């Protein structure tokens, strides 16, 4: 099963220019796995400064993209919680970056859930361009229902 951008927007509160998932290629809630795709266009606002004449996707943006894909995985695993439109917040991130990502290169992010409960999620992400791993990250995020704030 795949998700288009409208389905993605129904889960993620982020919007352009801070929405960093174009498509969910595969969702498998049974195995706690999501594969998502993002292609950064040459017109992204941050390429003007990162870096002039040498555009590279900032590592923090790659982390955000993988975190957004992790929320989509959470929504697939916990649809009853996601339906309540909770707030998601990052608790901890461990990351590494192996290769630069440039405009136009499709980034494929595979997220594996380690634990998904009503108020938190733990996941591992691997981002690839082609066969090459460009970044890896582990996330712990909290999930807070709006009526519990």
């Amino acid at each position, binding site marked *: 099963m795949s998700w288009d951008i409208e389905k993605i927007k129904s889960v993620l509160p982020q919007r352009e220019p801070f929405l960093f998932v174009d498509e969910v290629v595969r969702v498998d809630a049974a195995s706690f796995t999501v594969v998502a795709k993002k292609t950064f266009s040459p017109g992204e606002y941050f390429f003007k400064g990162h870096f002039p004449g040498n555009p590279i996707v900032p590592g923090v943006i790659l982390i955000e993209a993988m975190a957004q894909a992790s929320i989509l995985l959470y929504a697939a695993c916990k649809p009853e919680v996601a339906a309540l439109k909770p707030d998601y917040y990052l*608790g*901890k991130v461990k990351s590494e970056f192996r290769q630069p990502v440039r405009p136009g290169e499709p980034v494929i992010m595979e997220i594996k859930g*380690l634990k998904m409960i*009503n108020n*938190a999620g733990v996941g591992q992400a691997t981002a690839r361009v082609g066969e090459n791993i460009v970044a890896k990250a582990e996330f712990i995020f909290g999930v807070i229902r709006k009526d519990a704030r």
Partner: protein
Amino acid sequence: MANKIEDELKKIVSTITEIPLDTLKPDADFFDDLKIDSMKAIEIVAAFEKKYKIVIPEEEIPKMRSLSKIIAFAKDKIK
């Protein structure tokens, strides 16, 4: 085997909480005594599950409030 699990769990909790092994008291309550936040608590649970390839049911997680309670759960599940 039981002592090995105990030592391994103690190391997991010590690493995540950044509380030195020699000061980590088994019965200290994660929240009341050690002031661990809920993110660290879920990190401990996930690390525990990953290491021993077991699943702690969601309803059991709130009961995992100390190292000794995690050890007791582990000894029961890992024979």
